[in-house]
């Protein structure tokens, strides 16, 4: 009698349990399926770029979704200057412009942020508001005045005409992010350092900077990406000698006048994207933290 009840109980008990487990399993596999769809959705264009970049030009419009007719020719064509393209030069330009503007923006930004975080002065919040307001200006609105300014200075076609706007575009965010970072560091740090006999300069160099290095580095990555990707200003204020990669890609000339050189552009696009892919792979966590830091606090 007791045994019978027990079996009956367990029988009625286990049915909903399996059902619940099944439902849970279905819910979790549904989540993973969705995750796969998201990855596909984000990846599809980039994947297609790679497939086309490595495909023989005669099979440009072949719809096979795998790597077929693999060749490196497109990469060679991308760097060739026969058709008036200067991709190699543009790559070097972008590298120079990206590095120089990142370094300057960071040096200038670190000092400004340190002073803003460590010192209360009248109008400080006006300064911060000014910086933030400036970060919201639409780039396209600034092209005309910058064009006029740089024409007057005869800077069109020089590196500084591209470097300086890159700096002023990333500076507001750099200063803002670093200020919120410095503000979180305890004030006692410098005090302790000075008690130990450091000068103010030494306290900053030897105590604050090493601690701030990760934040500075994260900001530098974001600044470099922003400079590397800048298109609008560069498309108007550069010439053949100072053209950046983003502009070079948009204006790639092919062998046929009215035919987009798809495979060559895809190869060039792959080359431009690779440094960014590596950066994200290596610094993903830092980038994620840096992007959300300012907004979350």
């Amino acid at each position, binding site marked *: 009698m007791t045994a019978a009840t027990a079996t009956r109980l367990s029988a009625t008990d286990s049915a909903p349990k399996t059902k619940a487990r099944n439902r849970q399993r279905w819910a979790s596999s549904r*989540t*993973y399926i969705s*995750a796969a769809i*998201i990855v596909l959705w*984000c*990846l599809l*264009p*980039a994947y297609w*770029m790679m497939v086309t970049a490595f495909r023989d030009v005669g099979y440009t*419009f072949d719809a096979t979704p795998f790597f077929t007719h693999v060749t490196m020719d497109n990469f060679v064509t991308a760097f060739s200057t026969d058709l008036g393209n200067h991709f190699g030069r543009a790559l070097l330009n972008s590298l120079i412009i990206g590095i120089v503007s990142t370094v300057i923006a960071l040096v*200038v930004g670190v*000092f400004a942020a340190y*002073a803003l975080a*460590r*010192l*209360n*002065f009248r109008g400080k*919040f006006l*300064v911060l508001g*000014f*910086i*933030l*307001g400036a970060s919201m200006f*639409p*780039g*396209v*609105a600034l*092209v*005309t*005045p910058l064009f*006029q300014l740089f024409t007057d200075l005869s800077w069109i076609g020089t590196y500084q005409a591209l470097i*300086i*706007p890159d*700096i*002023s*575009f990333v*500076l507001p965010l750099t200063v803002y992010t670093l200020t*919120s970072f410095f503000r979180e560091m305890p004030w006692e740090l410098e005090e302790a350092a000075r008690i130990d006999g450091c000068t*103010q300069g030494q*306290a900053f160099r030897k105590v604050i900077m090493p601690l701030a290095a990760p934040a500075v580095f994260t900001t530098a990555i974001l600044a470099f990406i922003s400079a*590397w*990707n800048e*298109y*609008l200003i560069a498309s*108007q204020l550069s010439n053949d000698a100072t053209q950046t990669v*983003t502009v070079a890609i*948009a204006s790639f000339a092919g062998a046929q006048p009215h035919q*987009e050189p798809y495979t060559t552009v*895809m190869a060039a*696009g792959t080359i431009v994207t690779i440094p*960014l892919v590596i950066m*994200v*792979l290596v610094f*993903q966590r830092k980038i994620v933290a840096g*992007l*959300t830091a*300012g*907004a*979350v*606090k």
Partner: protein
Amino acid sequence: MSEIDADAAASQKLRKSERVKRKGNRTSEDGDSAGLGKGRAAAFVAPAMLLIAIFLVFPALWTLYLGLTNYRLTGFAATHPRFVGIDNYVNALTDSRFLNSLGLTLLFVLGSAVIGQSVLGFAIAWMMTRVRKGVKSVVEFFVLLAWIVPSSVSTFLWLALLDRNNGTLNTLFGTGTTAWLLQFPMQSIIVFNTWVGTAFSMLLFSSALGAVPPTQLESSKIAGAGAWAQLRDVIFPHIRSHVLTNTILITLWTFNTFTPYLLTAGGPDHRSEILPVYIYRLALSEGSLGQGSAVSLIMILINLVIALVYLRILREKKS
């Protein structure tokens, strides 16, 4: 980053209490904790302020003047712009092309930022709370990748995807020779911008969801709350300020983005001519720099209004 007001208020409060605490033993009335001194602090801030002032703020203000002239890209008016008063502004505000552009911009911001990026970003972030860590970082990686690919590369990828003849989409779905960019220009740039920009919303919501206390989720589950009720009553109150920050930032970015120009160039027949594209075509393709500057200034003003509304909401919420 746009929570400056909240930040400022909070740190002011903090500093005040610290000042009170320290008053006895050190001279920190002016809040100079690092012993920088006013002069040096000014010297530290000056280079950044100068760069921003000369190359960002001054050009923005300069559009006010340029908008009052007939400055052109080429010809006589390029070297000798003439003062024309507020003609450009009147023209802009009464021009049906401007009003059309404004309407399209509104649609673009609503569709791709407020709805597209926010909803998709939240959905992904929400989903990622239930998967293994490895899966989460893989998904994050690819979403992030879509965001940081240079715009001239990503638009080219989308051109190939949406191409009329032999485009990837037409091949995959057998939709023949549908000219997506010509038949559905607005839809195309909205989907494109959602694809590009979802990363920020996702990351922001991810970190916001991480801060929701799991015990509250558990107890609401035990109390029998469905997914929707849980979302509304437990999660939303925790992430409300993030939703606000996110909405305002992506609204501003989307409002200002020029990238769709590389996909549709505003066409066909101005059907995807959002404001930045309108300004670009007006000023640089058609050469009317003066008229373009007038519209630029209007656009900057709209930006400022959005930012002010945001700061206002934030302040009200805090007090």
